[in-house]
């Protein structure tokens, strides 16, 4: 629901980096988006396209790599990846002493620019 704020932050960060590097414009941007980040890729793409017009990213394509939720279990020592947005029990041993290690990402990885 706050994809507009996220898109605004994203455009600010890449525009700043584009200006600093003296590049002409941004062609594409690679993002990592955790499935438990609370951000819907489609809504983010929509917000990005609506907000990018007056920035160096005006023609940029947003490429989103979704990262599933993953964790490590302190009970059985195993690591796991799930399709759900949350984990209630270790899917390997059913125990409750696990740590979530992935799935909350909201990261800009890199971007393709032209000079």
């Amino acid at each position, binding site marked *: 629901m706050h994809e507009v704020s*996220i898109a605004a932050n994203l455009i600010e960060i890449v525009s700043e980096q584009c200006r600093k590097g003296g590049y002409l414009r941004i062609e594409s941007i690679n993002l990592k988006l955790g499935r438990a980040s609370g951000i819907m890729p489609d809504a983010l793409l929509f917000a990005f396209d609506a907000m990018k017009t007056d920035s160096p990213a005006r023609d940029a394509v947003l490429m989103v790599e979704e990262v599933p939720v993953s964790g490590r279990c302190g009970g059985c020592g195993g690591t796991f990846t799930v399709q759900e947005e949350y984990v209630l029990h270790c899917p390997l041993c059913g125990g409750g002493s696990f740590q979530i290690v992935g799935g909350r990402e909201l990261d*800009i990885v890199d971007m393709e620019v032209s000079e």
Partner: protein
Amino acid sequence: MKVKVATKILEANDRIAAENRKIFDGAGVFVVNLMSGPGAGKTSLLERTLAAKGGLRVGVVEGDIAGSDDAERIEKYGAPVVQINTGGACHLDANMISDVLGDLPLDELDVLFIENVGNLVCPAEFKVGEDMKVMLLSVAEGHDKPLKYPLMFQESAALILNKIDLLPYTDVDVGKIRKDAQSLNPGLRIFEVSCRTGAGIDEWVAWLGREAEKS
């Protein structure tokens, strides 16, 4: 040409939140980011807390999309209060809090509540400089909420289950709320309260006082 960015999208917000936190710590204020869906009873909880707080000096930041109804309710208790209108935004962010820091007598406070915009999703994502997040859920919202909106339950130090006086009139399974919420967040403290009758408020206020003293 490929350029490495390697930046968290919320980095700017996190940086401002850390600056806010430093100011709060310097003033010795314990800051609670209070979150819930609309109508769960955040302002009612604050009213009850202000009435039961004893010697604790409490201030409030009210975050709403529009209006100052909540700030007017808090003012009646003599607590310092600042109203923020987000003008449409679905959550408070660190910058909005940074803008009002000068309007609060931080040195004269033990606890500052930041009442977020009513929304069970977005506020959980944005740090504002708080020591801890506390969320409310009213029993009338149903027992499916922890699994439908896991992020807020995972981020909170305490869950206040409000409106327990309505339990005889609903089919809600409080045991399921407790079980799912604590599976999502094993360290979560749960308080069952009614802001209407005052049930459970003393226990919550005593815990809040202990947490504020610890920090």
